[in-house]
């Protein structure tokens, strides 16, 4: 029997970590992810987990220690947000290229400036090319479920890549909501033990990690790394299938909500997707064929699958919770448009920047996006393709 609970997103992830009981967690506190190491270190102090917690002096050290621990053969994780992740920058690439399956509980927050502690996706989107798997959650339940699935994906022998499990800062990390937890023993059995083939502390077998690769090897090394990301697609689906058999909760690369026959659709990630579903229902009640596609897996990017799901849409909005400063679109918009181009199908696409620095996303503001899509369809005039939602302007 699932355990009916009410928890904030941070508490839920801390519980998932306790249930998994990894070997090492180096972490440095930063709002809004601070509660994760805080709750989890209290579990350790109370004897509910025997993870080695390393209170490091910076995020650079946190990721460095995580890399060392993971290379040594330990199941490793950390938690961070925003500027904290930015300080890990070079190490993110080191972790990925050394194929170390480290898990990161990333609580998304705006990356300065002006200084802001609230949610947007500028932290994670900046690291989208670092070689980490990136999975997003709409609510506390998904953040928890994604974390339970994380190591199965990251540690798979065909993948061997670090993974970011993202949730929206404050909006889900600090909101108490209903959740169904899985029993400890079931989580343990699902995640299993970490048994890497080779690791630094393996008795009697010297092992060398992090070599220098000259030009004659570097491209081959990167191509091999890309293969891990490619293989991850199949593994993500397999793990999701097993997870569904255990919990009844179904996950894929993305969720389609009333999209099947939609004329007007948005592509969106994170907590705003839930708000958008309510907007879709209201529009549907008025006879408007609205739908949405919520991206769960951003890395690897399921381009073909997304394009296929959107072929029939007349006008589409790509919703980016970050700026890309290319004067054209955000990162999600760029990936979706490129996928549609390759698939040879071309709904009209409008790109929106929304929700920066915690700007509230409401049913009304999302509804206004659909209204603009309808207007484009009716007037056949696209107008500005790159727009800001809920911004004050003259």
């Amino acid at each position, binding site marked *: 029997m699932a355990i009916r609970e*009410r928890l904030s997103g941070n508490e839920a992830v801390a519980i998932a970590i306790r249930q998994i009981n990894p070997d090492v967690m180096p972490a440095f506190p930063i709002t*809004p992810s601070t509660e994760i190491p805080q709750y989890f270190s209290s579990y350790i102090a109370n004897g509910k987990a025997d993870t080695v917690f390393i209170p490091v002096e910076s995020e650079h050290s946190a990721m460095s220690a995580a890399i060392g621990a993971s290379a040594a053969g330990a199941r490793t994780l950390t938690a961070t947000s925003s500027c904290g992740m930015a300080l890990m920058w070079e190490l993110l690439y080191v972790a990925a290229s050394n194929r170390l399956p480290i898990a990161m509980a990333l609580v998304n927050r705006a990356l300065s400036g002006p200084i802001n*502690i*609230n949610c947007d996706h500028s932290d994670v989107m900046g690291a989208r090319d670092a070689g980490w798997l990136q999975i997003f959650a*709409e*609510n506390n339940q998904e953040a928890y479920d994604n974390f339970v699935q994380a190591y199965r994906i990251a540690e798979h022998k065909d993948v061997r890549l670090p993974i970011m499990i993202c949730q*929206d800062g*404050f*909006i*889900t990390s*600090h*909101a*108490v*909501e*209903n959740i169904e937890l899985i029993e400890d023993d079931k989580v343990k059995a699902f995640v299993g033990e970490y048994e890497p083939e080779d690791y630094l502390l393996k008795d009697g077998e010297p092992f060398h990690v992090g070599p220098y690769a000259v030009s004659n090897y570097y491209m081959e090394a990167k191509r091999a790394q890309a293969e891990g990301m490619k293989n991850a697609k199949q593994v993500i689906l397999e793990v999701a299938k097993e997870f569904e058999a255990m919990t009844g909760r179904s996950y894929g690369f993305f969720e389609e909500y009333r999209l099947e026959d939609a004329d007007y659709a948005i592509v969106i990630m994170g*907590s*705003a997707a*839930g*708000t958008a*579903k*309510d907007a879709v229902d209201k529009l549907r009640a008025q006879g408007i064929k609205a739908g949405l596609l919520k991206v769960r897996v951003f890395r690897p990017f399921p381009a073909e699958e997304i394009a296929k799901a959107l072929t029939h849409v007349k006008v589409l909005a790509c919703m980016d919770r970050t700026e890309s400063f290319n004067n054209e679109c955000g990162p999600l918009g760029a990936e979706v448009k490129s996928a549609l181009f390759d698939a040879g199908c071309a709904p009209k696409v409008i790109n929106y920047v929304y929700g920066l620095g*915690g700007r*509230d*996303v*409401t*049913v009304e503001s999302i509804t206004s996006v659909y209204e603009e899509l309808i207007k484009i369809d009716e007037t056949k005039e696209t107008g500005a393709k790159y727009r800001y939602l809920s911004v004050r302007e003259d």
Partner: protein
Amino acid sequence: MKDLIEIRWHGRGGQGAKTAALLLADVAFGTGKYVQGFPEYGPERMGAPITAYNRISDKAIRVHSNIYNPDYVVVVDDSLLDDVDVTKGLKKEGAIVINTEKAKEEIIPKLKGYEGKVYVIDARKVSIAALGKYFPNTPMLASIVKVSGIMEEELFLKEMQHSFEHKFASKPEVIEGNMKALRMALSELA
């Protein structure tokens, strides 16, 4: 009860409005509801006006926005009435509950012509009498439960007893005072 009840809390940093919103989510959860309890976060400064929210529903809640048209508003500190538009967007079929020593008649003129029901409670008096200290949380929680009818009073008291027993397991002496504050608030609300 309606399908969905939305509540907005106004308080000052350090008064426990956030904690009260989380406690309300807790007790409503205890009666089988779907709940949300969340504060509006910013720099945390003692004394600055803060807002917290609750959604309580029989169905799963998907919306993750703040609440702009609440069914109920709780004001934990009446000094906020001069600084904050506490009745903004408040439904007139709803109600506002204010912690104040003043009489309702004195308070109503500050509510910008709000047409719905107005309730007042002297949470300081209740808290000092029951606990010997000023914790406006508990009396305000009881007040909003009574006003909103989210649950039967008896069920609420039972849930809270249970919750306090859990929360104050190491200092059971405060349980009785807190329960007394709840009961007093339920009867003193005007």
